[in-house]
């Protein structure tokens, strides 16, 4: 009973934390554009508050620069279970344009933390980001939450 209630609630209150680990911030401003009345993230039950300690979803952008190698793991550890990681853009998947000789980047992000979904694009359009988060996150959080509850029983 309690768990099914939790599933319903989790679906409609998704807390998001955006971590820019070194991209060109093109992806980040597309996330900011999602806050605008045209897309209005909050209508979909997504709250953007950038605090890893309260986040259900960590959105990662950027190709993991040297400074972020440790910090990314640390942020991931700070988020409470169950947590979902969604990467935005080409950078966290392959390093994007920076993943060439001479670039000081450590992509992919999945080397450091487990990634649940990836949205490709450079940058992905705001509606694509929104669609991806809505398609993946509620189900994944519910599934992870249930698995976790079972483990604790």
């Amino acid at each position, binding site marked *: 009973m309690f768990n099914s209630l939790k599933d319903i609630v989790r679906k409609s209150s998704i807390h998001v934390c955006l971590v820019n680990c070194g991209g*060109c*911030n093109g992806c980040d*401003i*597309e996330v900011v*554009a999602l806050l*605008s009345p045209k897309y209005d993230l909050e209508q979909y039950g997504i709250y953007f508050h950038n*605090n*890893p300690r309260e986040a259900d979803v960590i959105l990662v952008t950027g190709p993991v*620069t040297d400074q972020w190698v440790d910090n990314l793991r640390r942020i991931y550890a700070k988020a409470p279970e169950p947590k979902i990681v969604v990467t935005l853009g080409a950078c966290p998947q392959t390093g994007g344009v920076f993943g060439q000789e001479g*670039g000081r980047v450590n992509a992919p992000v999945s080397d450091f933390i487990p990634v649940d979904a990836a949205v490709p694009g450079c940058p992905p359009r705001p509606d694509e980001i929104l669609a991806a988060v809505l398609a993946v996150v509620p189900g994944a959080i519910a599934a992870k939450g249930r698995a976790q509850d079972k483990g604790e029983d």
Partner: protein
Amino acid sequence: MILPIGPIHPYLKEPLRLKLQTEGEKVVKAEIDYGYVHRGIEKIMEGKNWQKGIYLSERICGICSYEHTQTFAEVIELISGVTAPMRAQYLRVITNELDRIQSHLLANSTFFKSMDHETLFMNTLALREYAMEALELLTGNRVNLGWNVVGGVRMDAEKKHFDAILRKLDKIEEGFYRHKALFEEAPVVGLRCKGVGIMTHEEAVKGHAVGPIGRASGIKHDCRQDHPTYRDEFEFKPIWRKEGDNYARTMNRLNEVPQSIYLIRQAIANIPDGPVRVPVEVGSGFGEWRNEAPRGEVTYMMETNGNLIKHISIRTPSIMNIDTCARYMLNGVATVSDALTTYASCDPCIACTERVSITDAATGRREIKDFYEVI
């Protein structure tokens, strides 16, 4: 007490760490930790041809991505001794000013958010979407436009595109004056930002402040005055103010939006016919070019060897602006929350600042314990 803020913080879109030394609530000294976004772009560009370089230059910074490609193209055109056709130059002006509108509106909305004025924040973001739609209409992309090539622009636009852009501009203008009045005349808003974070003219000169930040402190300089297209074809005068506080910086950016709209209208009214791109044989040599990005002067210095980039050095405006912010504006700010609005008012763009790493990794490590303590 030393109060660290960032690198992940609700008001900071990009990672950067502010260290505020405080006495009670008063900020007595501010320090900034860079280095979270260092990717080594200039190093990657070396030994590549311009077709590969221009993509990278675009991705130095996502907010003012357009101006970087224009400067990159123009410096190579200078080295090779060609000029882009007139129609392409006009198209560049249109795109440049649209990009400036969206960047200024985004910067101001961040500032409004940092002082918790949700209405203005939402409304400016809504207006910005019109500029984004116009950019998408013209170039096909929203953020990284991929619009400039050496010798011109990638494709032509027709009358129907221009008409649609003009309609979007009308919409921006319609909402703009109402929201500007909301900011200008509200007494509570004035209390939060008038006289906060003052930088005098001498300090701005000493710290090399550029762009709207410098102009708000009385530096009457705008690189568009010296740009051949703007100088010869357009009616243009820089906008500046004297006060040098948060209010002046925000108003200066707000006032530059109608100016950009006026420039676009001029361009669309007078655009000449002709080709939009000429073939270029890239020469060898050294060139330097400055342009006015939304945040100030961006300089490209490049040495080419035939088709290949031998050496490139890029200076972006934010490095000076963030530095002056830490050194002059944040000193003596009365409360910590005012420190955040002051920081937001200097329109920091970290991604473009950090191609050159000025990091002190040792101090970064030492303080890591309390990294997210103040979120």
